[in-house]
């Protein structure tokens, strides 16, 4: 337990400089991209004269120097103030609190589904490497992995929402339906079925292939030969000995995937009209909303750090040989 605490403390200490670097780099990138929030806004309303532009720049604080604005941002961040979004005319913190749960729900369900399905299929395929079952599962998962997410999303939407009408085509829940409690949860689940399914199918392949490869490796190890020699049932060898040991790389993958999924949800959130983080980030970029984008990136970075920290703790549980502090990320 003290080891775990030590790990948490050390991670916190290393995270702060990482986050600072992330903030400064994002700020610089956005400041030096062409056009600012006022340009983006004027285009969206069909034009405006220089006086309007100058007033807006003053109101947004864009007439101050880069350094002054970076300092202002960092000092308000130190007070845990995420600033004001000029694209939405609302506090950044409000927007993040409003959108983050949607993306976490989408991503969490999709990752869980992808991990569950991928691992199970990986075990089936890896139980007998190079068998016919293995070949079929590997090929199909590779094909699914190669399909672009937006295409799969649209096709699933056409089949299940437009033609069969089993599921809603878009949105997070039925608009202004007044549903509450379990009826509302069911409604949200129906709406999330397609986007979660799309994301899960694509990422499933990754987990499946890592699991399968890792199992194939474990099969060759001495203790498996020993287990066989002991006369253990094949089922027991596959599940208790091979699969359990092969699971470790997957936990690492899970950490990496949590970051990738944050990015992958942009397209899926657009197609299925889910008001989430990905879409917010896209709007922050097109509207040149620096504080909002910084807030999003900062939150995402913290998320990834926390997920990896949790996984490191899980790692120690799965493999008692490893002390949490042995792995540094």
């Amino acid at each position, binding site marked *: 337990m003290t080891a775990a605490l030590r790990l948490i403390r050390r991670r916190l200490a290393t995270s702060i400089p990482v986050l600072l670097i992330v903030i400064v780099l994002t700020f610089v990138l956005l400041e030096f*991209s*062409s*056009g*600012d*929030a006022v*340009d*983006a806004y*004027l*285009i*969206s*309303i*069909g*034009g*405006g*004269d*220089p*006086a*309007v*532009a100058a007033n807006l720049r003053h*109101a947004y604080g864009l007439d101050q120097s880069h350094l002054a604005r970076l300092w202002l941002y960092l000092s308000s961040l130190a007070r845990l103030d995420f600033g004001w979004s000029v*694209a*939405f*005319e609302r506090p950044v913190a409000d*927007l993040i609190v*409003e*959108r983050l749960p949607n993306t976490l729900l989408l991503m969490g369900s999709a990752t869980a589904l992808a991990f569950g399905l991928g691992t199970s299929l990986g075990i089936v395929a890896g139980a007998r490497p190079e068998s016919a079952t293995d070949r079929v599962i590997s090929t199909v998962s590779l094909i699914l992995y190669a399909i672009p997410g*937006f*295409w799969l999303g*649209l*096709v699933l*939407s*056409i*089949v299940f*929402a*437009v*033609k*069969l*009408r089993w599921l*809603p*085509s*878009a*949105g*997070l829940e039925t*608009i*202004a339906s007044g549903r509450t409690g379990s009826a509302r949860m069911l409604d949200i689940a129906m709406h999330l079925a397609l986007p979660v399914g799309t994301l899960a199918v694509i990422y499933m392949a990754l987990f499946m292939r890592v699991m399968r490869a890792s199992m194939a490796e474990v099969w060759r190890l001495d203790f498996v030969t020993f287990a066989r020699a002991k006369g253990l049932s094949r089922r027991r060898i596959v599940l208790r000995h091979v699969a359990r040991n092969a699971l470790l790389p997957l936990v690492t993958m899970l950490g990496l995937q949590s970051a990738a999924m944050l990015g992958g949800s942009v397209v899926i959130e*657009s*197609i*299925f*009209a*889910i*008001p*989430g983080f990905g*879409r*917010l980030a896209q709007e922050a*970029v*097109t*509207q*040149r909303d620096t504080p909002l984008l910084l807030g999003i990136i900062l939150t995402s970075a913290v998320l990834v750090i926390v997920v990896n920290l949790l996984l490191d703790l899980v790692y120690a549980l799965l493999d008692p040989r490893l002390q949490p502090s042995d792995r540094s990320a």
Partner: protein
Amino acid sequence: MGLMRIDLLSRRRLLQSASALVASTALPAWSRAQEAKGGGRLVVAADSEPKNLNPAIVASNGVFFIASKVVEPLAEASYTAPGGLAPRLATAWDGSVDGLSVTFRLRDGVKWHDGKDFTSADVAYSAMNVWKPLQNLGRVVFANLLAVDTPDPLTAVFRFSKPTPLQLIRNALPAVSSVIPKHVFEGTDIAKNPANLNLVGTGPFRFAEYRPGEYYRLTRNADYWGKDEPKLDEIIYRILPDRAGAAAALEAEEIHLAAFSAVPLSDLDRISKVPGIQVVTKGYEALTYQLVVEINHRRKELSDLKVRQAIAHAINRKFVIDTIFVGYATASTGPVPKNAPEFYDPEVASYPFDTRKANALLDEAGYPKGTDGVRFSLKLRPAPYFNETKQFGYYLRQALAAIGIEATLGNADAAAHQVAVYTDHDFDLAVGPPVFRGDPAISTTILVQSGLPSGVPFSNQGGYENKALDSVIAKAAETIDAEARTEFYRQFQKIVAADLPLINVAEWGFITVARDTVLNVPDNPRWAVSNWADTALRS
């Protein structure tokens, strides 16, 4: 105004083929029950969420699409009313002979959504405190507005410091005259007033709810002044950022209507064959967008009229319309669209598609083809706001190659394009989609007029200067007599077409796709941005 649509051609193609595949197998379907009771709930697609929804401050189509149902203008464009203008909050208007005042007679018995009476004080407040100082279009139209007198609660007299044509005011009214309640805004920071989102108006619908990223909800205003209006109980604007999503939601009967070409042009042919869906092209006549090649006259080659003529001759307008716009556009002859018959003059210089002539003109201008077949190179920047402007960029590059001009395409998103073209002038040719807003003085003459500061989007940033043209524009701006003023704008069109400060290629309105159950869809030339008081749902 739906400018931020990003779409992938390939995505739509894939969607089409995929749906064709699925359509060939008949599948049993259970239809979700329509929630129509009484007037019913109309669900429409929206692709953007304006941060400021107050139409008195932001006169843009994206804002009007939602806000025009809640906040009303003094008058609205009409197919049938005399002069093409139907009364809304004003019942009559009259200009003085000297052009220094316009008197509006206001509608009696109108109430704000919060129950207070609508009076001339609200009009005076809106005009003096919002339209003139703050509104993107009002700053142009009401630049010379001195004061608004309110001799009685139902009369508002606009007084101008310089003669201001009534023709301009009339043409501008639908877009610039949204009236907001004085008692809600007075004494507050107008730009930060919460009523910029939670709108308070006099219109047929009240603003009920906004769920960011999900929907806007408007409900019926039972106290509306219009007899038996509105017909609907509710309007829901459902945010669907993906254009393929709007088409799918229409087919799945989750929404009733998608305006502003939310269903991509290339999808229209297919969706028009789906039973229960209608494709409507009417209702955008007063919102004409123009496809324009903007020219940087600072570039030596392009300052030569012969070169500009050659480029105009190199563009195959028929191809552009048939292929890029899938037939849903018209060829342009000049800076005023055919949809503005009051001003439109077809008798202008024309540039039929003729590559041989274009090549000859370039030879004459002294730019012979080099050994590699290239005369000179240009930087071409198509605006990213519409699919069609981007596609025309690809086309124009090929058309220019055919006459020995090599164009490199610049790629930028909206904000970067705005800076590159309208602030930094880092372009030789650009493709832009300016809007004709009912009168050339509102947003059209600015495209060619000289002496404008840099940084103004949709304006002459190409360094073009023509004293004769400037003088015609200036005279038209202060000519009171409508006939004489129109004559100036005919001259304006002739000069622009002859001297080519820019090249007008095509003009288009948007497309509405709706379920058959939606009634009275295009009942005026600004339908999508009008009040929808008589729009109804067939149960």
